[in-house]
């Protein structure tokens, strides 16, 4: 599933405020633009009023919009398509539906989506379905109700109260973009200087919107890639969590197994459990467990009973699963553990992205505890890597940890829909009743995997568990047996290298600098390097999706370059892992730990600096 995409990262974003003429959208847009400009962004704006001064309320004609294009780099246009749309009513949706970028975010006042208003906007049913926007990132907020509630103790008249709705929406957008409220508050102060009631009301509502977005953990997808050489085919939008879930469903279907997921909700991983809970139509069984430990343990139970078992979580929950993950290591049962990384440590920054759980995935358990570790690179390839993770787990009878992150989980992109008949087959290593006794830990000579006998199969009854044991499954404290088992479990995971495709280099095989990324660094690393190449630099890039084991040709690729730099959103975990696995190379590090993805610009700047140093 290698797609050749020219990955373009937009260091810029287009926001459109849209509502009825009376909704104060122009003001909102202006305030947002100015705040952005003050923050140092380049901006370009485009206000568009309805042609009539007072168009019929609630109709498409009455919609007033204000579009802002903000960017790190020079911004030359107000943008063609909006990435974020604020829609105060159904008409605003209708008016803008075709000007939305793929995978954009729509914040809307759900209170205004009454049947009457919907009809008035010209819809017959659900606007989002009618306009095929249900693949977008929809954030419904009952803005009218909330504004009334915030101001319930004020002496303002109802009309003035409703006039502050735009501030609520603006507050939410500010939260999405981590903006400061200061400029807008000062503006309000000044504008309503003589009407303290109004000033206070507007400020209050602005902050209420901001906090509301925080409280509901509103997250805007921040990842966008556009295919360059677009292949023929049927496309859809897909986000990382959905792609992960579907990849697992695909693997279950291919393997002929039932899919089981046992999870506990946690941002930003909840979407996987939510998606699979929907998929009862395809026979997926989901358990919302009482906690993360129960989540993984139920999955281990389901695996013992013959399901394709999955547990999904994020950093803190992954920490809680460590003890039980070792039970899967010891019992050598197939298990897919998905960790959607977020900012840490501890509760950290729950809605932000980071790549700092790599150590935990590799080494965060007691004893010698080898597991396969993989990382997806883009929202849509979560499908591919989830499928592969399941295939390896089953065929090698091993737990596999798949790392994604907040950035992938919430990001969406157009995706060429694969056909199930093109997907590789998955061979389940079923045990069979034979003349000789079933030995639970007898191994395949190449893969070192054991055979899978599940309850219900007559004559294969056996007992396993977390104590060290012999080939027969009986408990053993024998020194030599323990050493043998520790080593063979390790070798089994190393043997997975047979499934790992060689690293593909973006650019020449030799050069001055190799930029190394892993997982979701993909887009930024490849884009930065492609741009550098276009600018004449002797630079190439690789991005790792298989971490343990590493691709066979890793050292060989590294050898082609004078310098190596590892880019990751942590303090250098993958770089250190490479120091262990390929000690002979010198690794530079480019790290960022801000809860944000890289920008292309900063990677390029760092690379140029590194190339200039001698």
């Amino acid at each position, binding site marked *: 599933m290698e797609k050749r995409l020219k990955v373009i990262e937009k260091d810029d974003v287009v926001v459109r405020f849209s509502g009825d003429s009376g909704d104060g959208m122009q003001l909102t847009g202006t305030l947002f633009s100015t705040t952005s400009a003050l923050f140092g962004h380049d901006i370009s704006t485009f206000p568009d009023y309805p042609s009539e001064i007072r168009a019929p309320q609630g109709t498409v004609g009455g919609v007033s919009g204000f579009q802002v294009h903000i960017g790190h780099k020079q911004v030359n246009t107000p943008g063609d398509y909006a990435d974020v749309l604020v829609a105060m009513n159904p008409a605003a949706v209708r008016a803008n539906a075709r000007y939305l970028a793929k995978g954009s975010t729509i914040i809307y006042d759900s209170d205004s989506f009454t049947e009457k208003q919907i009809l008035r906007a010209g819809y017959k049913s659900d606007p989002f379905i009618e306009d095929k926007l249900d693949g977008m990132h929809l954030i419904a907020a009952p803005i009218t109700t909330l504004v009334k509630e915030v101001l319930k103790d004020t002496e303002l008249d109802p009309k003035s109260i409703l006039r502050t709705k735009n501030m609520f929406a603006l507050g939410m957008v500010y939260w999405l973009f981590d903006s400061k409220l200061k400029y807008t508050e000062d503006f309000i102060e000044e504008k309503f200087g003589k009407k303290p009631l109004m000033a206070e009301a507007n400020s209050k509502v602005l902050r209420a919107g901001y906090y509301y977005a925080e409280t509901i953990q509103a997250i805007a997808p921040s990842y966008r890639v556009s295919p360059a050489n677009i292949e023929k085919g049927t496309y859809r939008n897909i986000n990382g969590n959905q792609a992960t879930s579907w990849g697992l469903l695909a693997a279950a279907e291919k393997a002929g197994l039932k899919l089981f997921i046992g999870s506990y909700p946690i941002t930003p991983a909840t979407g996987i459990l939510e998606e699979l809970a929907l998929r009862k139509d395809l026979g997926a069984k989901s358990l919302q467990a009482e906690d993360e430990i129960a989540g993984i343990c139920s999955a281990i139970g389901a695996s013992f009973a013959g399901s394709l078992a999955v547990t999904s979580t994020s950093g803190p929950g992954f920490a809680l699963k460590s003890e039980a993950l070792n039970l899967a290591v010891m019992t050598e049962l197939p298990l897919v553990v998905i960790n959607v990384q977020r900012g840490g440590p501890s509760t950290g920054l729950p809605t932000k992205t980071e790549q700092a759980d790599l150590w935990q995935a590799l080494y965060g358990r007691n004893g010698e505890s080898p597991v396969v570790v993989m990382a997806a690179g883009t929202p849509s390839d979560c499908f591919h890597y989830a499928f592969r993770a399941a295939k390896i787990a089953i065929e090698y009878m091993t737990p596999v940890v798949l790392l994604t992150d907040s950035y992938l989980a919430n990001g969406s992109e157009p995706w060429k*829909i694969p056909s199930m008949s093109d997907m590789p087959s998955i061979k389940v290593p079923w045990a069979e009743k034979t003349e000789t006794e079933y030995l639970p830990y007898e191994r395949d000579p190449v893969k070192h995997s054991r055979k899978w006998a599940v309850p219900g199969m007559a004559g294969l009854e056996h007992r396993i568990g977390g104590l060290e044991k012999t080939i027969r499954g009986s408990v053993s404290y024998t020194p030599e047996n323990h050493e043998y088992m520790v080593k063979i479990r390790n070798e089994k995971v190393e043997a997975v290298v047979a499934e790992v495709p060689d690293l593909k280099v973006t650019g020449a095989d030799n050069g001055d600098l190799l930029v190394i990324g892993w997982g979701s660094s993909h887009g930024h690393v490849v884009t930065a390097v492609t741009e550098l190449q276009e600018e004449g630099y002797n630079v190439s890039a690789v991005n790792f999706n298989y971490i343990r084991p590493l691709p066979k040709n890793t050292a060989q690729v590294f050898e082609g370059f004078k310098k190596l730099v590892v880019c990751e959103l942590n303090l250098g975990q993958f770089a250190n892992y490479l120091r262990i696995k390929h000690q002979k190379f010198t690794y530079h590090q480019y790290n960022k730990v801000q809860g944000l993805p890289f920008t292309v610009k900063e990677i390029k700047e760092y690379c140029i600096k590194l190339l200039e140093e001698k």
Partner: protein
Amino acid sequence: MTETTTHENHYVAKDFKSDQEVRWCPGCGDHGILASLQKVLAELDIPKEKYVFVSGIGCSSRLPYYMNTYGFHGIHGRAAPIATGIKIANPDLMVWMMTGDGDALAIGGNHFIHAIRRNIDIKIILFNNEIYGLTKGQYSPTSKKGLVTKTSPYGTIEEPFRIGELTIGASGRFFARTVDYNLQLSNEVYKETALFNGTAVVEVIQNCVIFNDGAHDLITNKETRDDNTLVLRHGEPMIFGKNRDKGITLENLKLKVIKFGENGYTEKDVLVHDAHEPNPGIHYRLAGMHLPEYPVALGVIRSIRDHTYDEAMRDQHVRIQEASKIKSVDELLHSGATWKK
């Protein structure tokens, strides 16, 4: 679980003995529990490969090794979610969970109450020796207040859980109590447990001869046991005592022990046990009875047939699969908004 049909599998208890040697201390109550379970399984008409014995960690949790069925020796406290996963994955299996007072109620307390709440069809046999046996004698959440153990050298300062109250407080539909070496009662209780559909909790009064010997003496020794226990059977009056001259009645909103012939009480005043009453109030009180004020209730105290989690999930699957247009992953991938390039 599998429905009991005609008796096709002519098992004897020995068929359920695994080839592993039983390693419990001589005299440990666990031997009695194992023997009784093997006997009961042999009497049921279920093929051996449909049983799964799941456990956590503890002396009690070693039982699956000795049972010639599928078995999973889990990690400490987590038998319930493991069993839950097994049952959901394959509702045709009969899933038994072997656990101790530490395993189920200390580290595993949360999973215990959630399994009960969900009413998933798992048979939980809780070996209550009021001590941590395997780790050599620390107090457990059921140790009597004041007990001197290695971690309470001056006596514990906390009230124990009463397993029955906790179970019913967590919406338990089945609660029973038996005694390790009372094989007759145990057989009866385990059999009812096997046939029950839903989360069943059986507290087994179990003696740890090494670290808490005699903890249950008052209710197990021949001298005192008949006066200190009340065996409940559905539909039978709550009469007990060596001379069967005592009973339980309700007075001033509370249960009360009465002696026939004293203060004008007769057998007529005695309550009749209704294990199938959905309202948990009376079962809660019966399960909570303890010495010295009350005898300890044995037998099946509560047994309410309710929709189980596994049944409800199956029903939901059937309903949704019938209604849905998506029958394959290919169809799923093409559902919703797509476009051609």
